[in-house]
């Protein structure tokens, strides 16, 4: 029988209790690097952090960033109050892997979370552990998925259990209500890190399944005139790796595709309303001026681009995600950063920087702070992403290179002239130099990684997948 002890409002299992005890006496992971950075004197109180996560939200779904089909007044507020990164990439466009990188600043090959449902490697500390040890009140509400989607046991965080697996439409209301409650009820002087982790618009996965055999006619004829247009890359060069082709199994009519995109935007609006509830509570709490709000998502959604649904591949619709950082008194307002390549790996270093805390060693991302405050800085020449165990992407300012280990088909896109990724230039001799350069970038990046062991069960899955190729 399990035993529980209460730590504040959190039920704590015996195992968890022992873990907390261990963490209290031993440094997590690379303990030598642990410690407060010298913060400049007179820099004021340490900021709070509100990390708002959505699930399966592509970058271009926010009305203030140009999406004409969704109405997102609350995300728009964040956009107006801060900096929106228009070249923001998921480290791995799948739920658990992307989250492992967001919460550790490490690529998924290093966290060990290369597919859904795995835990982060024990030696790598997460954001909650790192900030919690520096005096932050760290609270987690909503989807976690490392390894369990919804849990009351997240290392480094006090958990307020709220949310429903696979059912964002009702569960997210509980997440926003609990977040609202926390912001309005908290007492004391400690700075906080609150993670409000929503599931929507992830319900689109159910929508896709539930429309596998779509009806012959539109379910709601009244909306026929409101359906969004098909994307410009609905037709494209299908010279692709096999594992990407295999994901494309829709037999919908154009109208059904448009209805699916329309429905997805309603789900984005649904989570927008939940975000509004949390932002309203932050304002009511009197802490808004000293709280840095980071809004991002784990990965995007197909939306008919490349005739794709859902995620787990490396085209822009699946791997580009919103990243908006807002705190009007500390950074630029209503600014769009169109040029810097950023990824989920940069979130944790940014928070450490603003908290005045040295980040863990081997962090692969960089603090966004100079970009947020309009200062010049050296920045990444490229971002890398991984997917589906064998997929790798290198994105530079000019090109995107995609390869799947063991698959002879590589992809190279000229992102300046073909931003919708419609023409694969990998076999075009005029781009041979770019191809070679990107292959080398990937090789060098891969060589620098501290690769986590792969669990035997996952290894067997990989072997099965390779045999299919």
């Amino acid at each position, binding site marked *: 029988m*399990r035993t529980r002890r209460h730590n504040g*409002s959190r*039920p704590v299992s015996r195992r968890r209790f022992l873990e907390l005890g261990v963490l209290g006496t031993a440094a997590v992971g690379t303990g030598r690097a642990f410690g407060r950075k010298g913060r400049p004197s007179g820099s004021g109180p340490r900021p709070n952090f509100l990390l708002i996560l959505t699930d399966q939200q592509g970058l271009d779904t926010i009305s203030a960033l140009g999406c004409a089909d969704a*109405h997102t007044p609350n995300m728009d507020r964040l956009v107006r109050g801060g900096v929106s990164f228009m070249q923001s990439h998921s480290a791995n466009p799948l739920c658990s892997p992307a989250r492992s990188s967001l919460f550790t600043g490490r690529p998924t090959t290093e966290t060990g979370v290369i597919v859904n449902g795995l835990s982060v490697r024990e030696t790598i500390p997460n954001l909650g552990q790192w900030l919690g040890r520096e005096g932050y009140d760290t*609270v987690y509400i909503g989807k976690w998925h490392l390894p*369990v*989607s*919804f*849990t*009351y*046991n997240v290392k480094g965080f006090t958990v*307020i*259990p*709220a*949310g*429903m*697996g*696979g*059912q964002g*439409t*009702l*569960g997210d*209301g*509980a997440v926003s*209500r*609990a977040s*609202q*409650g*926390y*912001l*309005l*009820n*908290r007492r004391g002087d400690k700075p906080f890190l609150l993670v409000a982790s929503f599931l929507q618009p992830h*319900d689109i*996965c*159910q*929508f896709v*399944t*539930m*429309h*596998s*055999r779509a*009806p012959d006619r539109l*379910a*709601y004829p*009244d*909306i026929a005139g409101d359906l969004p247009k098909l994307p410009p890359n609905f037709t494209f060069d299908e010279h692709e790796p096999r594992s990407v082709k295999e994901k494309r199994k829709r037999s919908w009519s154009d109208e059904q595709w448009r209805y699916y995109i329309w*429905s997805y935007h*309603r789900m984005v*609006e*649904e989570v*927008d*309303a*939940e975000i*509004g*509830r949390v932002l*309203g*509570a932050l304002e*009511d*709490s009197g802490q808004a001026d000293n709280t840095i709000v980071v809004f991002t998502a784990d990965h995007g959604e197909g939306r008919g681009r490349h005739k794709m649904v859902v995620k787990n591949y490396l085209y822009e619709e699946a791997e580009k995600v919103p990243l908006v950082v807002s705190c009007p008194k500390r950074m630029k307002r209503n600014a769009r950063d169109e040029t810097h390549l950023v990824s989920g790996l940069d979130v944790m270093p940014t928070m450490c920087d603003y908290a005045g805390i040295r980040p863990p060693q081997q962090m692969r991302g960089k603090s966004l702070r100079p970009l947020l405050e309009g200062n010049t800085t050296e920045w990444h020449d490229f971002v890398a992403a991984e997917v589906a165990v064998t997929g790798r992407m290198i994105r530079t300012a000019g090109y995107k290179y995609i390869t799947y280990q063991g698959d002879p088909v590589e992809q190279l896109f000229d992102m300046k002239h073909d931003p919708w990724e419609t023409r694969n230039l990998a076999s075009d001799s005029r781009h041979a130099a770019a191809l070679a350069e990107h292959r080398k970038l990937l090789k060098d990046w891969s060589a620098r990684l501290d690769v986590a062991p792969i669990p035997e069960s996952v290894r067997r899955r990989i072997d099965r997948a390779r045999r299919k190729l």
Partner: protein
Amino acid sequence: MASQKAKRRRGYNAEETRSRPLSLAALKAYGALEAFARPEGEFDPAGGWRHTYRLWLVGNRWHQYRGFLDVKRGTSDGGHSVDLEVRRSLLMSHQPAIHETTASLTCAGDALCTPRSWEIKAETLDITGKPFPLSRLVASASVKGGRIEGRRGGRTFDRRVPTPFTSDFSLFDVVQRLAKQETKPMRFALLQDLDEVKEEHVLSYRERLSFEIGGAGLALHCYQQIGRGILPYRYYVDGQGRLLFAISGIRAYILDPKVQVQHKRSVERLARRPGK
């Protein structure tokens, strides 16, 4: 959830059922209507009534009971005011917790049952019913001149509300009083859970239909609601206007006066299951 044997008996085909949008027929195939009993007796939508709905959702790999919504209506001020008492209880996933919302609304006796003032409490409870204190939200508000003024978590707030508007709770009353034929659609802003404004909503008559359940046909009228921030709703009322079912996306509300008994059992089952 129905047993495998029961599913086989009614010819349930998981793949076939899951590959279609949620509908009354799909609910029947899933077995979600097995506990449904046709309500008997006279019903006056404009009078006092109490309806409890089973909340049922389709998930990634499962479909299941998720909680209930209880709505009680009364009138005062000679019918010029409508009082709604609402309780919603939701089972959270993978964790022994319940999210509970209770609300008392005083609404105008108009077609939209427009909220005039309300109190709402929302909190997360552990399986024994003990609240997580930090999660509790208590708010009260009233509408004055197109603005909502109130207190939330001990602090005052004031915000604009588009007009006309109604709440998602009020709609459980509104649809029962609509004409059972095609009429001018109602346009409004939705105040979801009494604090989330969702605009451009349209409620309209959709169709008359007969649905077979328990070996006999059930005459129904269907209304649909389309708007920002929701997947379209279909509300199904019987000949007297009684709301029996509502479906939106992956969720369904099924009239079931006994659902709170099942809810208690579900909570007890959850308490016995180890959390993660």
